[in-house]
């Protein structure tokens, strides 16, 4: 055990920070730090800037156009980008379908799709969840039937983030009705421009519409878009669940929210003094900052395990739970910073081009919406309740 930060790590951190400071477009940065809506083109622009620098795919091997970084470097990279106000890199191509194609895809599939992920010429979305099958993935009912050289796909996916911006979706579909539920599932790539694909936005609590329902009615999908073997999609799903599990910690978001919280608590007044000097509010900041510290070190420990080639199970569940709880606590504190100005809310002011005036006149308008929106992080990606089941199973054995 050696707990010293290596000089290389410090250099790496500085290099990333310098690059982001120099190259992140100020308009994007302003949107991100102001909790405003980020447009499709903002994500694409930033991804291309990173990709030019060779940092388009932090988790991919070099030979695929990635960086070859280890888990610790990837966390540092994420942290520096997030704190500086960069938008997140969309995970659906980079961290989901990309690694799947690298592990299970045909050479043709790899050649066709991987480069377009790096440049975001394709925008991918994920077709996993279905109405009625939230955390219980194996009960999915979307079916794909072979007809000559195509699958005919029918069904409905839901909670599909950014489906309205996507031109490709990767889906788990049922290709065999009999046998164990897990055994008849396949992994298909579907062109969103195919006839029969329909996207319907889901309006969420914060008035946003980032998630969608995706209806698939007699969608014809070429056999060539099957990844891996038919009926072996569960293996791929499990591979993905076990992949890059440390990103689930959301350390970048935690750090960004914490920095923003401290800024705001220094600028918002209470009885003529900065709010941060109020002992009870300061204590709450201190407690969450301590939580972030512990979370960061837990992440480093898990990264170190991943680096050593070990799989992380309960550790990842803990990272998920703590990361989501910390984000939620931070978002509540941010909202409370606003005081009475948490109440007025102009959803249209979340668009950067909004020209009017918000109630408070500066950046408090988005805070309550952010608080509401972040309730999702303890639900998606396996609810925190499911994560606790996994932690307990690791401690007690599967049949206690």
């Amino acid at each position, binding site marked *: 055990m050696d707990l010293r930060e290596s000089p290389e790590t410090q250099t790496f951190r500085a290099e990333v920070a310098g690059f982001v400071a120099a190259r992140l477009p100020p308009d994007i940065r302003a949107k991100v730090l102001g909790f405003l809506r980020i447009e499709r083109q903002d994500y694409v622009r930033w991804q291309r800037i990173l990709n030019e620098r060779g940092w388009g795919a932090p988790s991919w091997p070099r030979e695929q156009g990635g960086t070859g970084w280890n888990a610790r470097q990837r966390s540092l990279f994420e942290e520096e980008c997030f704190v500086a106000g960069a938008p997140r890199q969309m995970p659906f191509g980079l961290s989901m379908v990309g690694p799947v194609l690298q592990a299970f895809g045909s050479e043709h599939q790899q050649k066709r799709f991987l480069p377009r992920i790096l440049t975001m010429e394709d925008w991918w979305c994920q077709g996993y969840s279905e109405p009625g099958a939230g955390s219980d993935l194996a009960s999915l009912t979307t079916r794909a039937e072979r007809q000559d050289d195509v699958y005919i796909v029918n069904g409905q996916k839901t909670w599909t983030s950014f489906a309205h911006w996507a031109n490709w979706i990767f889906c788990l579909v049922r290709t065999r009705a009999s046998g164990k539920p897990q055994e008849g599932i396949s992994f298909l790539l579907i062109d969103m421009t195919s006839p029969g694909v329909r996207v319907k936005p889901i309006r969420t609590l914060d008035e946003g519409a980032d998630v969608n329902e995706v209806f698939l009615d007699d969608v014809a999908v070429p056999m060539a878009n099957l990844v891996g073997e038919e009926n072996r999609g569960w293996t791929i799903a499990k591979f993905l669940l076990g992949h890059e599990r440390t990103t689930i910690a959301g350390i970048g978001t935690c750090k960004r929210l914490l920095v923003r919280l401290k800024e705001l608590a220094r600028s918002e007044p209470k009885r003529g003094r900065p709010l941060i000097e109020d002992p009870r509010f300061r204590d709450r900041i201190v407690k969450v900052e301590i939580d972030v510290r512990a979370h960061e070190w837990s992440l480093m420990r898990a990264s170190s395990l991943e680096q050593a080639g070990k799989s992380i199970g309960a550790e990842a569940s803990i990272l998920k739970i703590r990361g989501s709880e910390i984000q939620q606590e931070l978002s509540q504190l941010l909202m409370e910073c606003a005081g009475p100005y948490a109440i007025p809310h*102009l959803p249209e002011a979340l668009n950067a081009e909004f020209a009017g005036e918000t109630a408070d006149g500066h950046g408090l308008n988005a805070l309550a919406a952010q608080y509401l929106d972040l309730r999702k992080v303890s639900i998606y990606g396996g609810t925190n309740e499911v994560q606790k089941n996994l932690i307990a199973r690791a401690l007690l054995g599967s049949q206690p």
Partner: protein
Amino acid sequence: MNFSYSEEQQMLAETVMRWLAAETVVQRGFSPERWGELAELGLLGLNVDEDHGGLGATPVETLIVMQEFGRALFGQPFVSTAVVGAALLGNIGSAAQRDDMLPRIVNGSLRVALATLEPGARFDLADISTTAVRQGQSYVLNGRKAVVLHGDSAHVLIVCARTSGGQRDQDGLTLFLVDATAAGVTVRGSPTLDGQRAAEISLADVQVPLDSVLGEIGSGYVPLEWAVDRGIAALCAEAVGAMEKLMELTAEHLRTRKQFGQPIGRFQALQHRLADMQIAVEQARSMALQAAALIEHPQRNERRKALSAAKAMIGRSGHFVGQQAVQLHGGMGMTAELAVGNYFKRLTCIDMTWGNTDHHVELYGDLL
């Protein structure tokens, strides 16, 4: 002490419930139709004495009505006008002011809003920079008022301004009745997170006559605090109604939603979460009752402690119950489609109205 509804109270609750149940679309913003119906039902006179056409009811009746409003997410400016406004006018209004305004509140033709808080003052009722300067037979008001609830549908603003003393002094504050359309008054309305309305108001050389002073010059703080406490008591009851409804929705979801082949209500961890929510709701209910019981307590400190205790606890339980209701509904809880989110939003706004949990813990601590 007796916690069962009397026959009359039962009737009141049922009347409100039935009326609200008839409403098919949740109103966003102010609705003249709904307001007219409130007047017809007599509810606007709940806190007005019988001499002025009101019901002269006890705080318990307001509690009963507010609980029903909470259950139905009713978002009209009832608290501003018929609780805080009516109580304040009834308490410190001159005979002329009362005779003029109270009957109009009761018949629905007058709405008032409390314009007290200021930008940068957070929840501090005494942190007032707005000035009122005597000039001959009038006062001239200058300043800004923040997050005036339902300020853009009010005819008259109750403005708290400083006539003497330094910033944040409780002494030297005076209340004024200001016509919302008077020269120099700018009302900038905005929707709120929970689909109600609030306004930013600026006062630029607003001239008001001497008889627009409400209560005594320089002694506005005490009655203002008292009136806000009445508003807090009403909000606490509303929050309890909202939480009650969230419990019903969540329990129903646990009974019917299936996952891993069984209703999710069979999972003990979720059962215990539901139990934790119920415990929180019952503590909140006890505090709303305590607030209603002590709102008329003759000793200020006893009243203030009860009200701050209630508001602090209801802020805490509102967040917890709202958050957990969303969590237990899973992804569906995050959608605008279900009512769950709307209740959660309302509870969030209630916490941030007239002082959140932290604020009231602090006030209570000062009286410990």
